[in-house]
């Protein structure tokens, strides 16, 4: 492991230890801890999606919040009890609708913008994301406008066993440190289900991305990112490849939105605020553009800033309010990362090397016999075999 990897592992180890202590002593509620974990995982999922567009494809996409919102609203409109259109469907249909609409919108946004040069792409995607946000806010008859949609059921609602698991599981009381018991009640089991769902989403996404990025398709994409003219000279339809990775990334972002709808049980147009887009950008830049594990790290850091700055309001002696402090930290983080480590904390290293190239590590072995003798035995072998040339 490199020095950075070691350092990061040490820091992560400390953080995990601190959280474990907080949990065990009851300072941090168990269900709130799981909620935070779910939020961090959601940002990690969003970062994986953006990474697929920016890290692997070199596409500057400032419409992350829009696709997140499409996933969230798709799930909400399909499943909420008081949804203006549809409503009451099984959450699986919400998932499907969210992903399909995200893919369609991604194609619609991609067609005019993916041929543009990088800074125009940034401005255009930001503008189109705002159009989507304005649409969701203004069409009150379809989306409930600024009031948002409440009453979204949990993802496992209506499932045979998992649907009622939070209620049927017995409340446990765990006593690790005598005197401060940890209660694991219905809320805890509900959040545990949410986290399991998130881990399933994360695992599936990670698997799909890894397979895609280590395939010939991924190789072409990396070439496009490094030097698009070269890829075109080699005869690749760069627009098609860029569109494919754009749609893939957008669907992953919508997946995160679907999870958010069933975690938070409430969506409103404020969730599509551009600040969400920039949170995810900070996560990707900080973690390391092009690196999936960097995206995970970035997601956790962003949630730490987001939720940590909320607690600032509890300390009355601290003169700064939570919301501008969050903005300041994010801004400083962007500037500092771009200044001192533009490649991110965990830039892709071993991820870039093809697995087959590092199989059988170590120096090449000395041959046991000379080359001539080997060649002779090879030819003898070949002549003895089929001669169908």
């Amino acid at each position, binding site marked *: 492991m490199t020095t950075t990897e070691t350092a990061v592992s040490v820091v992560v180890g400390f953080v995990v230890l601190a959280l474990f202590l907080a949990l065990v002593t009851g300072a941090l509620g168990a269900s709130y801890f799981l909620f935070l974990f779910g939020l961090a995982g959601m940002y990690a999922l969003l970062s994986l999606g953006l990474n697929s567009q920016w890290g692997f494809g070199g596409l500057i996409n400032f419409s992350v919040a829009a696709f997140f919102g499409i996933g969230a609203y798709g799930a909400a409109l399909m499943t909420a009890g008081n949804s203006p259109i549809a409503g009451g469907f099984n959450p699986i249909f919400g998932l499907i609708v969210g992903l399909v609409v995200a893919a369609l919108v991604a194609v619609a946004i991609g067609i005019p913008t993916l041929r543009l040069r990088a*800074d125009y792409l940034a*401005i*255009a995607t930001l503008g*189109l994301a705002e159009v989507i946000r304005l649409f969701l806010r203004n069409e009150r008859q379809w989306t409930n406008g600024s009031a948002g949609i409440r009453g979204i059921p949990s993802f496992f609602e209506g499932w045979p066993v998992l649907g009622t698991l939070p209620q049927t599981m017995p409340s446990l009381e765990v006593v690790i440190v005598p005197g401060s018991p940890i209660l694991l009640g219905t809320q805890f089991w509900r959040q545990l289900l949410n986290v399991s769902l998130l881990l399933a989403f994360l695992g599936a996404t990670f698997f799909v991305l890894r397979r895609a990025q280590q395939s010939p398709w991924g190789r072409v994409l990396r070439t496009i990112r490094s030097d698009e003219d070269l890829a075109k000279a080699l005869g690749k339809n760069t627009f098609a490849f860029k569109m494919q990775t754009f749609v893939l990334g957008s669907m992953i972002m919508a997946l995160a939105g679907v999870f958010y709808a069933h975690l938070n049980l409430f969506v409103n147009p404020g969730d599509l605020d551009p600040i969400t887009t920039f949170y995810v950008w900070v996560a990707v830049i900080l973690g390391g553009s092009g690196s999936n594990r960097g995206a995970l790290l970035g997601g956790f850091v962003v949630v730490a800033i987001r939720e940590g700055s909320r607690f600032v309001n509890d300390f009355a002696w601290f003169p700064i309010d939570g919301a501008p402090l969050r*903005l*300041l930290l*994010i801004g400083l983080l962007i*500037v500092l990362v771009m*200044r001192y480590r533009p490649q991110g904390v965990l830039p892709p290293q071993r991820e870039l090397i093809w697995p087959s190239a590092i199989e059988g590590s170590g120096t090449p072995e000395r041959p046991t016999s000379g080359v001539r003798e080997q060649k002779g035995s090879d030819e003898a072998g070949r002549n003895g075999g089929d001669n169908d040339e």
Partner: protein
Amino acid sequence: MSVIEFVANGVVYSSIIVLASIGLSLIYSIAGFANFAHGDTMTVGAYATLVAFGLIGGLGFTILGVPLGFFVATGVGIAVAAIVAVGTQRIVYDALDVGSIGLLITSIGVAFIYRALIQMGFGAGTVRYDIPSLRPIESLQAYGVLITAHDLATVVSAAVLVIGLHLLLQHTDLGRKMRAMADNPDLARVSGIRTYRVKLWSWVIGAGLAGAGGAFLGLFNQLAPRMGFNLLLVVFAAVILGGIGSVYGAVLGGFLIGMVVEMTPLLSRVGIPVGIEYAEAVAFLIMVVILLVRPTGIAGDADGGGV
């Protein structure tokens, strides 16, 4: 409201957009990247004007209903915005070695820092200048135009600043150097122009104009920490429409986009059911169409150079 009223409102709003888009276009062509902190630079100028006006006061007589002290305070706002921008260039952008996309991303961080500091200093709510609002000018009401003297002051001030910039660009040494740098930076440097100094001057002028735009936006509407960022995309639309690198294109683009945004309600009269809440969306869509059809904009050069 009659068409004339929409046009009049459009002219006032356009004046503010024009001030911001000239600055953005200058910075784009000379510093070489899309400055996403430009909107928050407007906010900086506006709040600096607020503080200065509070300290200076009215100073006696008024011009077009606006106290003289406000114009002086706007001068302070322009200066503060310029100083902040130059400081940011020296502290942040100089040390970076990341290319124009990296600078774009960094400018987003800078924008957040500006906005966070303003919000910490002034709170998240809206404020207004301590200038009593006026009734529309009676003499113009006969023509169906409902604008106040403040609006007229905004338009006149913007016109003065734009004409001043034109004189600077065409008739002064600095202006010549700026045009040369925007056209071909390497050739400019080879011919002895101190490109770094010209870059700093372009920040001074670009951010100063943005600060002025912010001050007048506060007069036109009100001040809030998000006021600049909310306007940023509209300003980008104007710059792209006019053509990056062309100041005169930015003036035209700012004017057209400003008019479009204010005249959106007229679309429903013509049969296209787009409400006023989609006014900015219309501007963004125009921007995307321009990017598709003619990415160089109305007046930009093929390589985006030239002022």
